């Protein structure tokens, strides 16, 4: 059904379509509408789920954890300070291998206080063991939330997933969204059948303590699960595409990178605006392209090497800063390209913090700057 929705609503619709069984979440701008919409769905009888009205985000994820080990499909959503406050639980959920899906509506972190978007909140959580997918549109938010359950619950992945969407720019921006039908979603996403759940017939300890003899192997298995997730993310996106006609490029999506001298690397909603710029510059005869990282974790190092290996300059647009180093994506892109015989120049651009707008002109400037480094131009 063709509808007109913002990404917050799109995510709430996905939660309904995914037949989530337990939701626990805490309000925070600009995520709140997701939670409100879910509460509304339940009140209106559209969604048959338990909504746990927790008193904080730490508890939100803890409650999801409890419900998940009981065998339920769970959902939560947060943003910024809320994500930061549940941080202990992030490591815990991934280490415990519970397939939580969480929408992170990206917003900058205090201090100073901001309610506007940047990626500092989720990017800073890159080491927590969660899969992170960044979406570009409300449609992708909906579709990715559905895909996220398939990925998270995959028997060899069993790793929680963050669906990251830019605050306001996506969360509060309505646009055309195609709503899948319930039957279609049901056929794409079967009910969650956990291998391990709390069962007095088979008593088990969930998340026991472990000595140095065992602990490392569990951490290794988390890393292997992430490796597996690479495949699964791609396969699920393919399958989704076959069913619904919409694909998002799996881990990383190139746009007009063929023969591009300068390629811009982006995450999230700014990609849309950048496409516009790429088209215009291409029209003007500039060999520019775009690589959107859909997954930050698992990090698409292989794809980056393949797609960017041929470029002369790579410009990385970071909506975050790893203070004392540089934008996090920039570092990781360089590392991914490390060791290639022909190495593109990699330039980092930190933009759009705390809701700073990124206009077409800003992006064009980045491209111009990048092109000026291209040997052809020098």
């Amino acid at each position: 059904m063709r509808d007109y929705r913002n990404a917050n609503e799109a995510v709430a619709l996905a939660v309904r379509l995914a037949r989530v069984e337990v939701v626990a979440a805490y309000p925070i701008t600009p995520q709140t509408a997701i939670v409100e919409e879910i509460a509304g769905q339940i009140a209106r009888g559209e969604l048959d789920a338990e909504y746990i009205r927790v008193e904080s985000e730490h508890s939100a994820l803890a409650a999801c954890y409890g419900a998940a080990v009981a065998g339920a499909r769970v959902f939560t959503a947060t943003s910024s300070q809320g994500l930061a406050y549940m941080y202990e639980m992030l490591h815990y959920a991934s280490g415990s291998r519970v397939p939580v899906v969480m929408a992170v509506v990206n917003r900058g972190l205090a201090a100073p206080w901001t309610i506007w978007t940047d990626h500092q909140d989720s990017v800073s959580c890159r080491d927590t063991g969660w899969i992170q997918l960044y979406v570009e549109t409300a449609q992708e938010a909906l579709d990715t939330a559905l895909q996220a359950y398939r990925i998270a619950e995959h028997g060899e992945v069993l790793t929680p997933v963050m669906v990251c969407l830019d605050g306001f720019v996506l969360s509060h921006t309505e646009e055309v969204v195609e709503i899948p039908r319930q039957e279609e979603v049901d056929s794409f996403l079967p009910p969650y059948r956990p291998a391990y759940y709390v069962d007095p017939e088979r008593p088990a300890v969930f998340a026991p303590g472990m000595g140095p003899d065992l602990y490392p192997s569990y951490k290794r298995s988390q890393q292997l699960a992430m490796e597996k997730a690479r495949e699964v993310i791609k396969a699920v996106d393919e399958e989704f595409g076959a069913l619904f006609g919409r694909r998002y490029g799996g881990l990383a999506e190139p746009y007009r990178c063929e023969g591009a001298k300068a390629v811009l690397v982006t995450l999230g909603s700014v990609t849309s605006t950048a496409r516009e710029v790429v088209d215009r510059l291409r029209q003007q005869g500039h060999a520019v392209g775009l690589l959107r990282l859909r997954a930050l974790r698992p990090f698409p190092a292989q794809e980056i090497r393949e797609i960017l290996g041929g470029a002369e300059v790579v410009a990385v647009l970071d909506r975050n800063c790893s203070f004392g180093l540089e934008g996090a994506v920039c570092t990781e892109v360089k590392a991914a390209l490390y060791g290639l015989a022909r190495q593109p120049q990699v330039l980092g651009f930190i933009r759009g913090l705390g809701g700073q707008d990124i206009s077409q002109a800003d992006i064009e400037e980045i491209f111009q700057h990048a092109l000026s480094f291209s040997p052809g131009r020098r």
Partner: protein
Amino acid sequence: MLQIRWHGRGGQGVVAAARLLGRAAAVYEGRYALSFPSFGTERRGAPVKAFTRLGDRPIRDRSQIYTPDCVVVFDVTLLEGGDTWQGLRHGGIFLLNAPFEPHSLPLQGVTFYRVDVTALAREVLGQPLVNTAMVGVLAGITGWVSGEAVKGAIFDLFPARLAEKNWLAAEKAYLLGQELREKGRRA
């Protein structure tokens, strides 16, 4: 692509208006739209903005709107802020809801419309709730979306009883707008 900026006060429903217009175009005319608020918390009474982009192809530019094609002002007192006309592009439209003609707006090269939508809304809705009617006027004046599309969107977004009343107001405003069409003052 068309870019519209809406000015109102917290509680007046500017965000809903921006959305309404977008929905009318996107769902009822198979076109594309983006609508978004001014990205802040809006306190009741505080001046707020909202935005709509309309287009025939999917809209990819997600940056802010700096040079709108049209500015819609919900309330004459907002003119005091002095920023309603900012960036309005040459040849654009400035639509003001006011019970009287304000003097000396520093508008240049744009078309100016004034309508007393509050009176209309009071009449139809019994309250000075102008947002649906403002969309109606704009649609009437510009023809950017059809009255039918506006109607469809209103019935989607409001519960039935409210929708009917609001469409009544919007339709009236739409017709008024059609009358006004081409009657804007060039400034």
